[in-house]
């Protein structure tokens, strides 16, 4: 019995290690699709590491201004299908592709039509531009509700356990047996 338990434990630890080996390396940024955006006087190439884009599925985005990043700063704002948008955030270099701006392993959470607004300040002054009509397809995988049901099981079990503990802690049940409740102790 003990041997079986340890075998089960070992399997739980080592099966993921064996099956996940391909995920071990930090992948290079591999752009498979680009869109061009005119940001005032500056041309900007928006790159995607996966195309088409799907909701909740993360990918690398690159934002490459013509002529490189030298002397340029910029901001980036995302607007989702509902019209709600982020605050304009400074454009920062992609951590694994330092010669361009970007977002690494980033997911757009909802399907529909997205819009990216850019501003760039540089040698030729200020510019603003928009990538509109970015289509995000439905999420892959099972329905989100199913994922939540499966993953909420531990929480439900925890609440169930606490309810049982709570009922056992009922002072009416404890006091007749003479076990101290603890509240008055100490």
């Amino acid at each position, binding site marked *: 019995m*003990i041997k079986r*338990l340890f075998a089960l*434990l070992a399997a*739980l*630890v080592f*099966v*993921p*290690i064996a*099956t*996940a080996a391909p*995920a*071990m*390396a*930090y*992948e290079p940024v591999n752009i498979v699709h680009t869109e061009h955006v005119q940001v005032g006087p500056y041309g900007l190439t928006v790159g995607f590491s996966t195309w088409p884009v799907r909701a*909740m*599925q*993360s*990918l690398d985005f690159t934002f490459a201004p013509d002529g490189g990043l030298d002397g340029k700063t910029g901001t980036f704002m995302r607007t989702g299908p509902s019209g709600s948008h982020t605050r304009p*955030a*400074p454009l*920062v*270099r992609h*951590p*694994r592709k*330092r010669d361009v701006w970007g977002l*690494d*392993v*980033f*997911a757009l959470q909802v399907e529909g039509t997205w819009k990216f607004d850019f501003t760039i300040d540089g040698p030729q002054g200020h510019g603003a531009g928009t990538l509109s009509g970015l289509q995000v397809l439905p*999420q*892959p*995988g099972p329905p*989100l509700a199913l*994922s*939540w049901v*499966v*993953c*909420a*099981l*531990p*929480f439900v*079990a*925890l609440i169930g*356990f*606490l309810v049982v*503990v*709570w009922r*056992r*802690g009922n*002072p009416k049940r*404890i006091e007749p*047996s003479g*076990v*101290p*409740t*603890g*509240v008055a*102790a*100490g």
Partner: protein
Amino acid sequence: MRPIGAGFVLLGTGISLIGTSWDVQWHIDVGPDTFFTLPHLFIYAGSAIAGIAALSVVLAVTAAQRRGETPDPRDGGVPIRVFGGAFTAPLGYLVTGVGAAAFLLYGLTDLWWHTVYGFDAVLNSPPHVALFTTISITMIGAVIVAASAREQRWGRIAMAISVPVLMTFFPITANAFQGLPVPFDSIVVATALIIVLLLVLTRVAIGRPGAAVATAAALLVMQGILWVFTPLATSWYADSVGLPMRDGMGGEPSLIPSGIPLLALVAAVVIELLFRRGALVGGGVAGLVLGFSFVLQRPWLGYAAPVTTVELIATTIAGCAFGVLGAFLGLRFGATLRLREKVTA
């Protein structure tokens, strides 16, 4: 035997906590992820250590019981007969072991999730919430183990370590409720509830004045350790794998230690002072202190938008109300931790 088993459970939960703080900061400050990062190794090793320790104690207690010895409830909690009596498991070790086993299973779910959705690390994806919950269950088991040895010095020390670990970890799960349409800051109020609950629980379970203050002091020390360790480990690990830190980071302190209320010690003093006169009132006042101070702490440390007057008042009032609830729950659960009768399940 007893302190060794409990020691390994505590060690495991501590390693999981450190790994989680490190991992979260890695995602914020550096970014790219695979299943096999050093922080992930800490998180998984922590659960494995706690789980194997729990399993070992359960097997030892079962063997002793088969030899005719009566299980001692001071050794990890009331003994529970599981699988029709095939095993005799002290409650604390049973809870720790089940939590750790479930954690490893949900680790597989998380691995699958990342293969489908990629490695965008969000705290509140379904598998992450399951993983946080199962680690919390492991940590709850550690608290039960510690409380069962309350008469011994090591038991009280274990309590003052295991409870702050749970206090630090459990509010992470509260991120799942972040979008709730309530007028107060739900993360602040959930944190206040958990901290008051666990401080009152500790005071009742240990049954000695000062237990809550000792626990809050240990929480402050733990916060200090994570505050220093987390950014150092993150930048060291980034250097060692040749990855740069992200541009444009604001220099905020690390996320997990920032998520611990700095005034928990004040809340603990309030709970101690009002414990005999009215534990519920004490919980309410402690919740008020935590609600008011923590809702200001989060924007001060750069982790929330500046708080409006309405949010400040609403969160303080909600903190007070949930503090009363926390004390109410803490009194009962604390009393339950003192139970020593035999249980058949």
